[in-house]
């Protein structure tokens, strides 16, 4: 083991900044990053064991104990649950004879839960050794487990390939694109290299001006003006970096998955344009590990672009050097936060930084850095190609251009839609064939839960901003149990724990909503949850804690009757159950549990 690990460390030039890559390779090769492995890595990198352990322990896909030869990660996000995850889980447990969170005696199969893997349009889905399996059901699970017992390779456990690039020999995935509507920008016509060619003919300042004039705003959800970000960054001195945030972790979002699959060239071209504009030579695509099935394809696209001199040295003879590497995450939602992403790309725990300084001033390796979403870079390519005026003419005055929506949940046509900003929720629901809608979760768990009375509102940065997640919730759903509780479990899990209120209040809020769902809630709990949410929002460093109470606050605001129905109007109520509480210990010592009430 030692030689192999030393080899891996050597491959990354003994650079502690590449800790993530080192740990990913060790995990993949040995099924875990054991204590022994940590020691070897630490001494090879000349850092302390704690430096290695703190990164290792932060990420969901790094484990101390070996996972099974087949490690099954079933997505337990809200849409997966809606589409029948419990049956899939039940079948896995039945056929393997083990519970989730454990491994078969022979070490063959281990079962785990994981947060949204970006497949909300084809749930229930799971990752098995990084290979995606979609639309699972009891029958498919039985077949999968039989295949595992027969020792089949994971790639051979499905026969039908997805559409487009998903069927590419380097991808060979069963994932479907589900592109339902292509628009004029990101999913429209595209010729590789045209945008970059034009940019290189312009002054770098003129490229920034063009992007500024287009009114393009960040597509990750926050909507910060892209041109302004590039401008700020270009004014700083020293080496510059271009980072692409492809850590698409907001439950219900999967539009970047489709861009990465079908528009990889466009994305890399957009990063190169940004590099030219701000004066960077290096770009990093930070790609969530859930999309590692695209790894070989990504590398082949990069090679192709280097061969075409769209990346590399002296691009198109204009004296501009730019290259890109792909950095994989290891399962941490908070790494979608830009400063946490930088920390992670530097090989550390994905904990958000204090700001200021902002990444445009001190970002990756403390150098001026821009971080944009996949869709933002893709949009920039078309803006340079067709001009800012063309782009600005699409959309609303405050939200220029188009937006990719990932629409899932209770609708007939889940998938990716490139819409023009300004569409109403009602129009959107008609478009996706959704009937009997109870609510629409706009912008994922950290967004808002919208009631039918507000379905005339517009999808636009000035009204309903979104990074692209739209979850349709039908009337048959128990909104508090199926949706709000699921979201709060997610946030309690994904908080990095750095801010005290985020670490503890998300847990308290989760417990409170659980209490209400189980029928132990009282009226006072509703006011308490609102008060705690307000404190949480105000006292946390990054967007996670600032928005994680939204599932609760927006449903209290918009669906108060669902709470009132469930809570009792008493001063105090305990959920303590003596017979439940003493059951285990009495069994262990062998005595009857006698309860005197």
């Amino acid at each position, binding site marked *: 083991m030692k030689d192999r690990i030393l080899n891996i460390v050597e491959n990354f030039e003994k650079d502690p900044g590449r800790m993530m890559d080192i740990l990913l390779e060790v995990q993949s090769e040995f099924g875990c990053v054991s204590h022994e492995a940590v020691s070897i890595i630490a001494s090879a990198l000349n850092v302390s064991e704690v430096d290695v352990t703190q990164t290792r322990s932060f990420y969901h896909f790094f484990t101390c104990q070996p996972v099974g030869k087949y490690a099954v990660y079933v997505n337990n996000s809200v849409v997966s649950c809606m589409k029948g995850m419990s049956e899939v889980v039940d079948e896995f447990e039945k056929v393997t004879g083990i519970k989730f969170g454990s491994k078969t005696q022979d070490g063959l199969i281990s079962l785990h839960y994981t947060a949204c893997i970006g497949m909300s349009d084809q749930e229930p889905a799971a990752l098995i050794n990084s290979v995606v399996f979609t639309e699972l059901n009891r029958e498919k699970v039985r077949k999968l487990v039989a295949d595992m017992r027969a020792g089949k390779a994971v790639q051979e456990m499905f026969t039908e390939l997805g559409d487009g690039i998903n069927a590419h020999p380097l991808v060979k995935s069963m994932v479907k694109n589900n592109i339902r509507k292509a628009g004029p920008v990101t999913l429209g016509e595209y010729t590789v290299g045209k945008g970059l060619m034009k940019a290189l003919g312009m002054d770098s300042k003129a490229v920034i001006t063009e992007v500024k004039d287009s009114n393009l705003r960040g597509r990750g959800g926050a909507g910060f003006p892209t041109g302004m970000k590039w401008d700020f960054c270009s004014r700083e001195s020293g080496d510059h970096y271009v980072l692409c945030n492809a850590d698409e972790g907001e439950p219900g979002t999967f539009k970047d998955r489709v861009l990465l699959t079908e528009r990889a060239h466009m994305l890399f071209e957009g990063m190169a344009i940004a590099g030219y504009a701000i004066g960077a030579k290096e770009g990093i695509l930070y790609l969530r590990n859930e999309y590692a099935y695209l790894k070989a394809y990504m590398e082949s696209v990069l090679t192709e672009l280097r061969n075409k001199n769209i990346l590399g040295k002296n691009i198109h003879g204009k004296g501009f050097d730019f290259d890109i590497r792909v950095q994989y995450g290891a399962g941490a939602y908070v790494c979608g936060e830009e400063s946490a992403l930088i920390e992670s790309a530097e090989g550390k725990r994905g904990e958000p930084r204090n700001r200021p300084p902002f990444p445009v001033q001190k970002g990756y390796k403390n150098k001026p850095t821009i971080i944009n979403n996949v869709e933002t870079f893709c949009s920039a390519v078309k803006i340079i190609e067709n001009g800012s005026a063309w782009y600005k003419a699409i959309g609303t005055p405050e939200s220029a251009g188009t937006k990719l929506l990932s629409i899932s949940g209770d609708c007939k046509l889940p998938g990716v839609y490139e819409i023009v900003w300004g569409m109403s929720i009602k129009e959107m629901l008609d478009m996706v064939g959704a009937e009997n809608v109870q609510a629409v979760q706009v912008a994922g768990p950290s967004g808002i839960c919208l009631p039918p009375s507000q379905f005339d509102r517009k999808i636009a940065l000035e009204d309903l901003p979104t990074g692209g997640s739209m979850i349709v919730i039908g009337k048959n759903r128990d909104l508090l149990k199926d949706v709000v509780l699921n979201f709060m479990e997610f946030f309690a899990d994904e908080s990095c724990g750095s801010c005290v209120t985020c670490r503890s209040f998300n847990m308290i809020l989760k417990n409170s909503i659980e209490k209400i769902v189980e029928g132990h809630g009282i009226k006072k709990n509703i006011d308490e949850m609102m008060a705690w949410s307000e404190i949480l929002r105000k006292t946390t460093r990054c967007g996670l804690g600032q928005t994680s109470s939204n599932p609760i606050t927006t449903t209290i605001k918009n669906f108060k009757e669902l709470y009132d129905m469930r809570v009792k109007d008493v*001063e*105090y109520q*305990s*959920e*303590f159950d*003596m017979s*439940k*509480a*003493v*059951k*285990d*210990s*009495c069994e*262990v*010592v*062998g*005595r*009857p*549990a*006698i*309860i*005197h009430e």
Partner: protein
Amino acid sequence: MSKPIIATASLAGCFGCHMSILDIDDRILQLIELVEFNKSPIDDIKTFTKQCDIGIIEGGCCNSENVEVLKEFRKHCKILISLGECAIMGGLPAMRNGIPVKECLEEAYLNGPTVGLNAEKVMPNDAELPMILDKVYPLHEIVKIDYYLPGCPPRADLIWAAVVALVTGDELNIPYELVKFD
């Protein structure tokens, strides 16, 4: 008017909070002028003999007897106070929360380094003994608690200020350093 009546108990605690009550020193003489004690280790009255005004409880609930005592307090006291970290949050005993009770018992009676004398590998299971709960509960999860006095232990001056304010009806005036230790 008769004097207000106080009851106290230590559940899954270390009696440190009660020691802190004694740390009011000579003010205990003033306290006796102000209040009367009922069920409490201070006067060694074992069971409630009348309805009380203030119940002060140290420690969380780790077994069935703790729960029963706590419920008795709630029945007999108008005001109930959680005294100290263990009562408020479970404290040190709650370090076992998150470890299955089976593992805790096995460590304590079968596998631990100090169980050599337990040659017959017996776990205490006499019906007279309290039953162990699955985890240590803070008091407010079992009954309604009116006030919380933080600290490990809460300082004598804090206990004194709180009790006097409750008994006299005067405004509670707590200097910062009585509850904050940073």
